[in-house]
């Protein structure tokens, strides 16, 4: 056998995947169909000719713009709050950790409308904290800030849970190495913990943003519904549904397109990922 000369102009073959059992692929295809079929039903149900008018109506555009702003703000807050919270839950051992972990997940399990009631009792004009804020002249009732607060409240659990499980499964080897190279805890956090947490952050951001974008019950109960100020896309969609369910489905398509865009961006991976 002669030695073949090296080929340089060819994309290198990747390391091989360990493979997936074929029965798992069958189930995956079935499960995929379970998602795709309703999605097709949705597309089939849309009256395409009505779409342009529906989507460019003043109220729809207002709602869309409001939703984008509030969901982005809520996601940003969830990152700022969620990362430290997940760190503390995953890597410290204070008493009451399990309790804290459960409390963080409460907004996930209570119906959103109840979340709205609870938020009112805490941050409303007569609420535990709201009253103090009111005295200081800060009134968030019926403002866009209330929308962001509601969205943050219901979506933070996704961020925290996702990040915590990633931190727990990745261990602290690299952090220890960094400290032994003289790096402070603060610097280690920024240069080691956070970059290595990337896959967790991506999935956390996707879940959080999606949940914030779809939030309805807590928003309407706590923040109200006024065009341009508090009426986000889901509220607009619900209102549209009263008169015309097809319009509701069509408006949902916009939400879906945004979600698809966000997901595509979030999952975009650099060419040479580290494993």
């Amino acid at each position: 056998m002669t030695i073949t000369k090296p080929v340089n102009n060819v994309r290198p073959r990747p390391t091989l995947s360990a493979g997936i059992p074929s029965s798992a692929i069958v189930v995956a295809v079935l499960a995929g169909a379970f998602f795709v079929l309703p999605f097709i039903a949705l597309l089939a149900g849309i009256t395409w000719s009505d779409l342009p008018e529906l989507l460019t109506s003043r109220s729809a555009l207002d709602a869309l713009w409001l939703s984008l702003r509030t969901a982005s703000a809520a996601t940003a807050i969830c990152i700022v709050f969620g990362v430290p919270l997940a760190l503390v839950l995953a890597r410290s051992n204070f008493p009451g950790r399990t309790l804290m972990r459960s409390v963080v997940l409460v907004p996930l399990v209570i119906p959103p409308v109840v979340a709205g009631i609870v938020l009112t009792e805490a941050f409303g004009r007569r609420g535990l904290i709201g009253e103090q804020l009111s005295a200081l002249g800060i009134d968030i009732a019926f403002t866009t800030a209330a929308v962001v607060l509601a969205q943050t409240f219901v979506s933070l659990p996704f961020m925290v849970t996702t990040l915590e499980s990633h931190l727990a499964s990745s261990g602290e080897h690299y952090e220890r190495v960094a400290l032994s190279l003289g790096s402070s805890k603060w610097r280690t956090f920024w240069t080691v913990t956070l970059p290595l947490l990337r896959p967790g952050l991506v999935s956390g951001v996707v879940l959080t943003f999606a949940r914030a974008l779809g939030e309805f019950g807590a928003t309407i109960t706590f923040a109200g519904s006024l065009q341009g100020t508090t009426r986000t896309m889901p509220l607009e969609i619900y209102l549209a549904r009263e008169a015309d369910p097809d319009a509701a489905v069509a408006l949902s398509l916009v939400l879906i397109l945004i979600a698809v865009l966000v997901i595509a961006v979030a999952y975009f991976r650099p060419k040479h990922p580290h494993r």
Partner: protein
Amino acid sequence: MTSMQHSGLTVDITVAQRKVNVAFSVPHGEVLALVGPNGSGKTTTLMALAGWLMPDVGKAKLDGTVLFDCPDPTRKPHKWLPAHQRGIGYLSQDHHLFPHLSAVDNIMYGMDRADITGRRARRAKAEEWLDRIGLAGYGKRKPHQLSGGQAQRVAIARVLASGPRLVLLDEPLAALDVKAAPAIRNLLTEVLRDLTVILVTHHQDDIVALADEVYHIIPQR
């Protein structure tokens, strides 16, 4: 062995991006020492043989079975036997003991292939292996509760216990202490007697003690 064509291993591999290009053969039942400087392609060669990495161009044949045949880097290979059908035991440079299994369960993992049936028979066999590598009594430990050299020995036992036709060992003795190294070397001499083996090592002692032949990889710059 007379007929190298039909028995033993023949290899010819090119991985362009890593500047690796090797071609050699190992007669059935012999031990080939694969030596060369760091980065010359020893691990790359073993990975290709184990089925973890597809070479750009290459072909390998073991005891008459074609393991893979990749004539063209731009096309799918003519033949590509998946890793678990090759009958090859590969001790990688990082041992990768299963973190969720105890030492004894790690050793038992490959015994399916070794045709040892029955849970009790397997466990007995695994305990025997633990004894042979000087770690009797350590069976219940999880990998992270073992020292570097202890883990390395369990990994050696795991590969050998799986009854491979071809054994690929990437620096098996690197982490071992002055007493264990010769002991394990003796163990290998005994166990590997009838097997076809590729041994990667940087140590003359290993070559002298274990190898029938040596293949030097000369790096291309």
